[in-house]
């Protein structure tokens, strides 16, 4: 029986959403400063409006709905899921004011795509976008990759049990460190350290490849944010193809791989536990999956002689596969080349790579390597159980930071999320088919949106139907938060009208 949320429950939810919105508002200062530095005064006004609107709404919520209680599970999860929607609406304000979007919905699409680290974009005339606008687009990815709640936990919210519940709602079940605030700060420390090195490296390559110094480092910063946070936005419409640079592609491959690794694994590596890299079920699953899918893709591309030589084949093929599997969405080919030149087999392999996704507790989306690995391990366990005598006890283990025994509870929770992803992929495909797109394109784009990848066959464009834009926004939101917090939000909404009266714990 569902308990009807009380007014106090709703007040608590509104209060904590207010706190997170204020944190978001403060972050607008970064693109605002960028606009001031580069003399982009019109955009400075846009970011000032975004910042003040966020702080005003955040403060208003806190003043109107003061709460002193800590959050329970349903409140924590509801705060997270609503915060992501509110962040989309507020983050879209400077985007739509910039004049690069056909409508507020298009701006919301890009804001959700940014926060959810997807990378599908409806921006128009990107090649004439201002530095501050690009800063905000990429910053949204960086913030979304770490998690909007993680930002709040780092700066504004106390490390209570309720804070942990919000953190879990953001698809982060693992605490890297015992305390959730320490975990949030560790995530920031890792990301900012890599950000410094990644930006310098990409900046130097940019200079060597013929770009002016300031633009090299700006592009380095933006491309780093999009690569490490497996986002996929780029400052130019040609994605990574703009640079025509093999070294640039190599560095972004390394960053995409680092971004797709679990933050717990990063912690193990920072603690000099390098063996973990080879023992971990996620890295093993990712390696096997990428190898098998790339081989299937290679067969498909070779059959069609898509590329003129092996170097071109490896450079183009491997890059798109890493980009797909890591959930980044960087491209070194044009969107129509997927359906026109890649053929069915290679396209199927890349759709599967997108669907599988990266690691849990990383910036990547998709089903996640941990769940795929667990699924195959439990399958193996069942086969062994059938083949051995009835009295035999079959124990299967896997290694993820520590050795864990496979239990039905674990397999069940992994399977539930796996099925949710598959259903979301299917529903998005059906909506695409409804609007008249062919199956290959509709399924490709749907998986790309729900797994927060960002590769496209060309469907995602300002002229695409409104219904499809809304569908992809919902898919990106669901995929990034991994369903549960959104299901709880829906449950709370239903319980508000149909639930029994009582006090939620």
């Amino acid at each position: 029986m569902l308990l009807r949320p009380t007014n106090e429950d709703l007040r608590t939810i509104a209060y904590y959403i207010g706190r997170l919105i204020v944190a978001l508002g403060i972050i607008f200062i970064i693109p605002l400063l960028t606009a001031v530095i580069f003399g982009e005064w019109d955009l400075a006004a846009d970011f000032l409006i975004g910042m003040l609107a966020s702080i005003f709404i955040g403060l208003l919520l806190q003043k109107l709905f003061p709460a002193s209680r800590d959050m329970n599970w349903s409140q924590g999860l509801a705060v997270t899921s609503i915060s992501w929607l509110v962040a989309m609406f507020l983050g879209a304000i400077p985007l739509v004011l910039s004049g690069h979007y056909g409508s507020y919905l298009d701006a919301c699409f890009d804001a959700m795509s940014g926060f959810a680290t997807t990378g599908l974009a409806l921006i128009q005339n990107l090649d004439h976008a201002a530095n501050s606008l690009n800063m905000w687009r990429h910053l949204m990815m960086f913030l979304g990759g770490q998690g909007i709640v993680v930002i709040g936990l780092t700066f504004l919210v106390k490390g209570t049990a309720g804070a942990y519940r919000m953190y879990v709602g953001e698809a982060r079940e693992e605490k890297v460190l015992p305390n959730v605030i320490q975990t949030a700060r560790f995530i920031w420390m890792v990301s900012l350290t890599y950000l410094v090195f990644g930006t310098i490296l990409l900046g130097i390559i940019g200079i060597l490849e013929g770009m002016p110094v300031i633009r090299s480092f700006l592009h380095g910063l933006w491309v780093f944010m999009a690569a490490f946070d497996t986002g996929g936005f780029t400052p130019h419409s040609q994605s990574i193809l703009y640079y025509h640079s093999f070294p640039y592609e190599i560095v972004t491959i390394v960053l995409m791989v680092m971004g797709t690794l679990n933050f717990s694994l990063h912690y193990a590596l920072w603690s000099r536990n390098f063996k973990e890299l080879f023992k971990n079920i996620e890295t093993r699953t990712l390696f096997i999956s990428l190898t098998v899918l790339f081989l299937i893709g290679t067969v498909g591309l070779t059959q069609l002689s898509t590329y003129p030589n092996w170097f071109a084949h490896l450079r183009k093929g491997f890059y798109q596969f890493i980009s797909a599997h890591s959930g980044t969405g960087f491209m070194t080919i044009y969107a129509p080349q997927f359906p026109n030149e890649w053929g069915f087999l290679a396209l199927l392999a890349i759709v599967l790579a997108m669907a599988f996704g990266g690691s849990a507790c990383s910036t990547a989306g998709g089903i996640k390597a941990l769940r795929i690995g667990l699924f195959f391990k439990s399958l193996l366990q069942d086969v062994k159980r059938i083949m051995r005598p009835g009295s035999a006890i079959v124990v299967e283990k896997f290694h993820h930071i520590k050795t864990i025994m496979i239990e039905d509870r674990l397999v069940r929770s992994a399977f539930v999320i796996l099925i949710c992803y598959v259903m979301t992929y299917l529903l998005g495909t059906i909506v695409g088919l409804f609007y008249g797109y062919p199956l290959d394109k509709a399924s490709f784009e749907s998986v790309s949106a729900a797994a927060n990848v960002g590769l496209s066959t060309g469907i995602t464009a300002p002229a695409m139907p409104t219904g499809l834009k809304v569908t992809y926004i919902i898919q990106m939101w669901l995929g990034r938060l991994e369903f549960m917090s959104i299901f709880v939000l829906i449950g709370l909404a239903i319980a508000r009208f149909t639930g029994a009266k009582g006090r939620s714990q």
Partner: protein
Amino acid sequence: MRITNKQDTRYKQFQIWLLVIIWSLYLGNCIFAAVPSTELVDNAEKYDGQVIEYQGEAIGDIMNRRNHAWINVNDGGRAIGIFSDKNLSDQIKKTGSYNQIGDTVKIIGIFNRSCADHGGDLDIHARELYIVQGGHKVEHPVNQGKLVIAGLLFLGVLATLIIPAAIDRFSS
């Protein structure tokens, strides 16, 4: 009516000239009419290895690589990478960015669906490059309406901070 041999020869000459003119116009149209980027990308196989004309705005950076340079040219549909000799790319003075519209350039060159020299890139190797129209600066004046909205929001923030504090003080 009898047609003399002289008339017959003139008529044949006229037919040949007419054919030559029509054929030249057709060829000229086929080869040297600017092909849009969407057509090039969507039907890359058809144009692969052919000499084509492409026209658009030079955007972003001109990236010099020894004696050559990469230019990205956007015709309003998509941007395509142009690989050219440095002496050709040196003609470009302005490239498109937030503050300016770049030079409009016309390129005649070989289109590659998947360039063997450049790791499979879809690109154009320029043989000729002409500046069709020079670029220019773009002004972005600050919208006064936006400043008014920002001012109102600022007042709103102040009010949410000050009014509750004032009420607390008054009631105490």
